[in-house]
Every structure is written in structure tokens, then in C-alpha cells.
């Protein structure tokens, strides 16, 4: 009797219902920040009212790209950089779906950079979560568009000569309706940000600054994941509603985190429906005065 009581199955992890538990433990290294971002995403999905059948997760190639394979929802692991085009198609065929794109910095903003800016410009109703670990972790730590100036990677052993992208400023400049950045240690705020982004109509972007001890930390003399996590957190300054252009990732002075943009804009589907219903007004809205044409003197 007592032996049976001892052998009673251990309680399951509360997030197991959203995990493909047969694939766990996952491939991410010890102390990788993607797991924390993934946990936040699952917590946000668990809080969401949408039926599970109407949530889908799309990811590209890379460490973060593996995320789609671990979540127990409709998910798709696309080719390199093409997570957003696939998600756009999915959204247009199933407009009731909440489509979440979760991928890495190299996938979303290097090879998929053009798709990213145009999806933000058209304001396609997607939730994009970018896990930024400052390098291409899966292939061995090469230079990525997010690598800080001067940081060492496999392909820049003497330090990166390039200025990195500011993803939040880029997304905001392209017309995203929701832009936020948090480090992997701001877990509760990150979960709130992902929840808000999922409920936001339009292109919403959440950047997660995550430690990569194996590829990035090791070459920059911060070998322990715990130190890297703390390093990002200690240098972060929370500044909500700051102009995204000023939200720099500066490791010496201030690594600005917070919610930068939260606006309303008609989405791609709204405008496309308007065109199809023939409700679009003539362009330009002010009309053209033909008699005045050519009257303006040159010079």
C-alpha cells in the first residue's frame, strides 16, 4: 500500500498541456534564453481566450525556429527567413486565426528582413516574437545583423566592425502597431507584452533579448549563462513610450527596454476588403484641378 503511494505519478508541469512532451528535453543549450521566451509565450497563450484551434505558431530556421516543433498547437517550421510570408498566407486564408511568428534575429531580420519590413508596412495582423541572442547560434556563432559593434563572433574574431540594427526602431518606422523589447529576465512583463501583442490588431513586434552562453557569451568572456542573463538585466533601463529611435541597445550606458509603440492603424485585411467592396475613394483625395495644371511657373 505504502509502496503504491510512493510510486504515485508525479504531478505534471502546468505547461505540459501546451508542450509536445515527447520531444522534451529540447535541443537548446543549458541556460539558453529561448526556453524562457517560449515559456512566456505559452503563458500568454494559456491566458488567451481564443480557442486553441485558432492559434497557430510559425517559425523559421535557427535555434528559435525549433520552437514550433515543441508547441502542441498548429505549428509550422518554414524555410529560412520565410516565416512571415508563410504566416501572411495563413492569416489571409484563416482570418479568424491568431498567427504567431516566433523566430530568431538572424531568421527574421537578416534573411527575412524584406518580408519583415513589408509585413509591417502592410500591417498584416501577425504577432512577431523575435528572440535576439546577437548571433547565429545554431551554426556556430557567426556575425548577425544584431551583433553589437565590437563584439567577437566566429566570423569577426577581432570584433564586429558593423553597426547593428535597432529592430524596434525598424519595426516602428515600417509601421508596426505594437513594439516592445524586454530582456529574458523581465519575465512577467514579457508575458504581459506578448499577451498585449496577441490581442493587438495589426503587426505587433516583441523583441526578447536572450542569453546565448554557448556561441555568443563564450567568445565575449561571459561564459556562464547566469552572468549573461544578469549582464543584460543590470544594464537595462525601462522607458515605456520612448521614441523607438532613441531606444538603443547600448551595453555601456543603457540598454533601453519597454513598450515603445501601441497605436491603432487599419490592417491589411481591412484595407483589402475596402478595395474589394469598391469603397475606396479616388486618389488623390483632394482631386486634380486640370485647369490649374501647367499654370505653375517653373523655377
Amino acid at each position, binding site marked *: 500500500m505504502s509502496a503504491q503511494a510512493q510510486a504515485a505519478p508525479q*504531478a505534471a*508541469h502546468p505547461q505540459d498541456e501546451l508542450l509536445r512532451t515527447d520531444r*522534451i*528535453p529540447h535541443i537548446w543549450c543549458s*541556460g*539558453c534564453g529561448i*526556453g*524562457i521566451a517560449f515559456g512566456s509565450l505559452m503563458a500568454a497563450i494559456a491566458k488567451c481566450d481564443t480557442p486553441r484551434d485558432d492559434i497557430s505558431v510559425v517559425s523559421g530556421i535557427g535555434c528559435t525556429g525549433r520552437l514550433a516543433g515543441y508547441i502542441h498547437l498548429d505549428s509550422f517550421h518554414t524555410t529560412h527567413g520565410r516565416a512571415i510570408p508563410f504566416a501572411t498566407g495563413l492569416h489571409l486564408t484563416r482570418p479568424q486565426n491568431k498567427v504567431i511568428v516566433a523566430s530568431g534575429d538572424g531568421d527574421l531580420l537578416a534573411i527575412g528582413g524584406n518580408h519583415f519590413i513589408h509585413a509591417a508596412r502592410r500591417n498584416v495582423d501577425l504577432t512577431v516574437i523575435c528572440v535576439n541572442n546577437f548571433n547565429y547560434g545554431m551554426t556556430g556563432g557567426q556575425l548577425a545583423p544584431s551583433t553589437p559593434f565590437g563584439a567577437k563572433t566566429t566570423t569577426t574574431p577581432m570584433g564586429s566592425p558593423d553597426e547593428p540594427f535597432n529592430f524596434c526602431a525598424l519595426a516602428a518606422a515600417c509601421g508596426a502597431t505594437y513594439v516592445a523589447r524586454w530582456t529574458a529576465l523581465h519575465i512577467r512583463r514579457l508575458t504581459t507584452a506578448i499577451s498585449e501583442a496577441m490581442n493587438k490588431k495589426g503587426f505587433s513586434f516583441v523583441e526578447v533579448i536572450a542569453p546565448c552562453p554557448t556561441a555568443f557569451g563564450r567568445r565575449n568572456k561571459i561564459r556562464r549563462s*547566469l552572468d549573461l542573463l544578469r549582464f543584460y538585466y543590470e544594464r537595462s533601463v525601462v522607458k515605456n513610450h520612448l521614441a523607438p529611435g532613441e531606444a538603443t541597445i547600448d551595453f555601456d550606458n543603457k540598454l533601453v527596454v519597454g513598450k515603445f509603440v501601441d497605436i491603432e492603424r487599419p490592417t491589411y485585411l481591412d484595407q483589402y476588403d475596402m478595395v474589394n467592396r469598391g469603397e475606396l475613394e479616388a486618389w488623390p483625395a483632394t482631386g486634380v484641378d486640370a485647369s490649374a495644371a501647367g499654370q505653375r511657373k517653373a523655377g
Partner: protein
Amino acid sequence: MKFWREPLDVGDIKVTKGKVTVVEERCKGCEFCISYCSRGVLAMSQTFNRKGYHFPEVVAPKLCVNCHFCEVICPEFAIFSQEEDQ
């Protein structure tokens, strides 16, 4: 906890109590839960799991207040806490 004066409703406040469970086989020994546990409930084990990592052990179960921070910070989904009746 030390207060500069005794809170007026100190008798009414109920501190929740938690029970931490570690899924040893999933752990990869990153120590996040041990360092960020505000109550010092966890410590690194001396033994290994099947993959050769040390995993956290509950050394002070009475101190846990069920804040769930170990649960949300664990990148491996290997630790969680549940509320326990007082």
C-alpha cells in the same frame, strides 16, 4: 522580514505556501532557479541526472511562498510549484 513598524493588518495577511517539484530528467543545470529564488528554497544536488547534469534540490521546503518564479524562469520546464494547504 523586518518592518519599521508592525503593519496594522499583520494578523490578517495569509502567506501562501508552496510545494516545489523538480522534474529531474529535464534539468540541464543552468542554476537560474537556484540563483533567483528569493527565499533560498533550492540548492544544487550532488548527484547527476541521466544526462549528466546536476539538478536543483529542495533544501528548505518550508520557506517556499509559491511565487512561481522558478517555474517561469526555468528554460527547460523542469520545475514548478503548487499551492499547498496550510
